[in-house]
């Protein structure tokens, strides 16, 4: 019996029996973005390797079997953070840990810095990238939620050229994006909010670093007399993709920010239709959405200078 299993593994292509987790593939390590796009367009059953912190587990389990793996790790143009036209432009292959400690991120997009502390663990953030997280599109992931709160623009590259995708159009369903098979994320633009705006981020997970059962990201910009000029509230882990709670935002904008306004806005989170799964039922997620929204909005208010 054991011999039979051994024979089968040998036939499956492993010459070092027992040491190989993923199915065989050809490895490609382009140095230029255009070469990566060309490989992705040409090779059958190819997949991009970014930080590998979600893809490699799936390959180890053989949930994902590819013929070609295109490693983006050697493309310098895909890394870096810069302010461009009022937005923070982040290269898709910028590591999460580098963003966590980036002075530009802390200054211009503090919501992103705060959210990153909840993304996996230090070992996975050392490898994991922002572009990989966005393309993987796990509904409970923090970075897609932050991008939704900022109304990010995603720059998608293929041999056909480059196009900009608004974050609202990027997530099309459960772990699904608007990227076509030959497209890859090159960069993400996060529009910078006015200096002095407030941010808040809360999630509930069973352990630090786990995917959230539910979470929320909030941004508030206040004008004279603490009237809300702009508001963004995003839920994640609650529906199949990050969800902007527009009803909550509408209850805030144009009104003075106080405890009653925050309560009313957070109550709008009650209206969403949450998913149910092995981790939590829909009713519990709806409860968390409301409670965490209130906490995130309170943090954002405090950071914008209002004790609501």
């Amino acid at each position: 019996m054991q011999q039979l299993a051994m024979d089968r593994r040998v036939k499956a292509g492993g010459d070092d029996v027992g040491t190989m987790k993923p199915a065989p593939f050809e490895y490609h390590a382009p140095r230029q973005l255009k070469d990566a796009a060309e490989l992705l367009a040409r090779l059958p059953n190819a997949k991009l390797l970014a930080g590998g912190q979600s893809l490699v587990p799936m390959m180890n389990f053989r949930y994902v079997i590819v013929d070609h793996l295109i490693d983006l790790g050697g493309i310098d143009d895909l890394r870096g953070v810069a302010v461009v036209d009022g937005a923070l432009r982040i290269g898709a292959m910028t590591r999460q840990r580098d963003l966590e400690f980036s002075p530009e991120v802390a200054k211009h997009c503090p919501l992103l810095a705060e959210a990153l502390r909840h993304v996996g663990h230090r070992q996975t953030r050392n490898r994991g990238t922002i572009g990989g997280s966005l393309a993987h599109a796990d509904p409970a992931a923090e970075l897609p939620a932050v991008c939704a709160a900022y109304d990010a623009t995603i720059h998608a590259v293929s041999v056909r050229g480059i196009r900009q995708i608004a974050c609202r159009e990027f997530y099309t369903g459960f772990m699904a994006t608007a990227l076509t098979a030959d497209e890859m994320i090159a960069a993400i633009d996060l529009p910078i909010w006015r200096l002095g705006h407030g941010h808040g981020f809360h999630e509930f997970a069973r352990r630090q670093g786990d995917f959230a059962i539910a979470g929320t990201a909030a941004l508030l910009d206040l004008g004279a007399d603490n009237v809300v000029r702009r508001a963004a509230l995003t839920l994640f882990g609650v529906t199949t993709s990050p969800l902007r709670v527009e009803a909550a935002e509408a209850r805030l904008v144009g009104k003075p920010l106080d405890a009653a306004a925050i309560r009313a806005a957070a109550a709008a989170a009650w209206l969403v239709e949450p998913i149910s799964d092995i981790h939590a039922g829909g009713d519990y997620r709806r409860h968390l959405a409301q409670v965490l929204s209130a906490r995130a909005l309170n943090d954002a208010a405090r950071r914008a200078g209002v004790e609501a």
Partner: protein
Amino acid sequence: MGKQATRVIVNGKSYARVVDARLTLADFLRHELNLTGTHLGCEHGVCGACTVLVDGRTARSCLMFAVQASGCKVTTVEGLAPDGQLSVLQQAFIDNHGLQCGFCTPGMLMTLTELLRDTPDPSEQEVREALTGNLCRCTGYAGIVAAALDAARRLRGAAAKPGAS
């Protein structure tokens, strides 16, 4: 299919091999280089036993392919005690009952080596947060946290005394 040349510097020594592209860095260390100090628990990035330093930063070696580490400097638990002399952190693990079966210990040591390098005076909360990515199923973590804080104290003491090693 998928053979690839890779050259990795492990614990200061350069190794050139032609390997399957699908060979993980963890299996490369264990089976190609016979450095079996790096342990494999879950092999899908949850347990942290296989944590090594890649260019000075912790990474789960089960979630990297050996070919991705080409040109990188990798440090494994063997690299913490190159001449058989235990590092301060390793000695603190012994002194504080920071291990029982020892399976998770190599990963714990690598994570805490990075933490103590970047944060010489960590709070208990910082130590616990750093360890969220490393699972131990026997000690209950108290001894590990105590070992980390003790090692931090000893390292700061050594740094304060010029000439002390």
